[in-house]
């Protein structure tokens, strides 16, 4: 591993499984390069732990380029750490100072049970998507992409909502563990486009129903989710979902 001159103290949440009670463990890591990502720092720590014959820390990661939404970690009281608009894999150690103590916790929420240490079960998001986060299409040849004309503004707004990577930072940041930003981004990305408009009413009703059943909290419009979202998803999406839910609840055709 590359070597640097940063020495850090880490207070990391250790939890055996979802049924056990977790505690904080303190670790010292030495020779960390400021150019490492936060996850690479954890790699160094885990190698150190393995060498010492101890159990490494479990944490989620996959693409390590900010697009998969797997890395989580609640770092010093903020999801994905102190920088705005980044995931943990995009957070560099130069955002910290030599000698810092860093507290690392998993996403906390009834709907995100801890699997082990810093890894949480986010399948509640999958179940919300399965409830309506899709567009039904017939099988067969793909249609020509320009068959339906879409205004540029609509395409852009839909695309901005579709930038959501489903990491769950909104839930982690929210004092109520509300999933409104995630669900509203998914509702918006589809309902803004003509292909998604067809199933608009059922979609919002079913996705919100599933969201409530999963045990997420309620939105109090603090805006913490928008501020912490690595993809800067806008609160406008939540208002759009509120509108669509209201309209669909009262004027659904069946």
């Amino acid at each position, binding site marked *: 591993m590359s070597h640097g001159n940063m020495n850090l103290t880490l207070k990391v949440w250790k939890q055996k499984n979802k049924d056990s009670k977790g505690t904080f463990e303190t670790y010292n890591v030495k020779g960390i390069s400021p150019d490492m990502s936060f996850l690479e720092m954890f790699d160094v720590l885990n190698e150190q732990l393995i060498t010492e014959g101890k159990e490494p820390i479990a944490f989620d990661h996959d693409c390590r380029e900010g697009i998969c939404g797997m890395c989580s970690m609640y770092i010093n009281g903020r999801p994905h750490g102190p920088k705005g608009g980044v995931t943990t894999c995009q957070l560099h150690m130069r955002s910290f100072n030599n000698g810092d103590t860093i507290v690392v916790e998993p996403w906390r929420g009834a709907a995100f049970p801890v699997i082990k240490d810093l890894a949480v079960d986010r399948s509640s998001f999958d179940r919300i998507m399965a409830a309506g986060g899709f567009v039904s299409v017939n099988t067969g040849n793909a249609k020509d992409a320009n068959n339906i004309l879409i205004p540029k503004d609509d395409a852009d707004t839909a695309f901005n909502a579709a930038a959501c990577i489903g990491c769950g930072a909104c839930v982690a940041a929210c004092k109520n563990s*509300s999933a409104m930003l995630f669900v509203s981004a998914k509702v918006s990305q589809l309902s803004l486009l003509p292909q998604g408009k067809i199933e608009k009413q059922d979609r919002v009703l079913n996705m*919100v129903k599933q969201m409530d059943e999963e*045990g997420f909290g309620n939105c*109090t*419009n603090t*805006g913490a989710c928008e501020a912490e979202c690595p993809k800067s998803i806008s609160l406008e999406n939540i208002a759009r979902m509120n*509108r669509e839910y*209201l309209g669909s*609840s*009262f004027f659904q055709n069946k």
Partner: protein
Amino acid sequence: MSKKSGFLSSSIGKKFIMGLTGLFLISFLVVHVSLNSAIFLNDGGVTFNAGADFMAHNPVIRIVEIGLFAGLILHIVQALVLTLENKKARPVAYQVVNGSANSSWYSRSMGLLGSLLLLFLVVHLANFWLPTKVAVFSHTEHNTFNNMKEVFAEWYIVVIYLVGVIGLLYHLLHGFQSAFQSLGINHKKYTPIIKKAGIWFSIIVCALFAAMPITMHLGLIK
């Protein structure tokens, strides 16, 4: 019918009720602060008492008053339900929370500010609403302006009212614009206007309310 009850018990429906009752209570504040500002005419409370008398005896106002209490109770009960649900949604708390990095303290403290307002409201109703009611039902004359003067003669009452007004200020600073968002109103053109209007509304209403006990205590209103 089932669809309707589904809406009201959903997370979005409950927030919708919070926003709607919140805006209804805000509309009451407009009436309340406008009428009470009549004391600043400094005419010995003649205009103010005429207004207070109208509010105490007009039958339409009586019906609206019932609606007001219903709205207030709904707002409080719904807030309690939501708060309990939100607590349940995070069974294990974070060790470190850097809330100020992503949101304002008052947006995170609406429950606390609301509880403060409720405590204030008990004192406030005992001071003014109750004596008026007693006078109406016993068919006796009641001078609300003199009542105000007596109440605000005590310095500690003035302090309680100022604390209440500060609580209201921060509750409104978040609540005003938040209500629109909960009702689904968020628009690039209008939301900045709503936010600014909310800030100015909160400041003006609270400044006027705060000026009432202060000026009366200092004897500036005769």
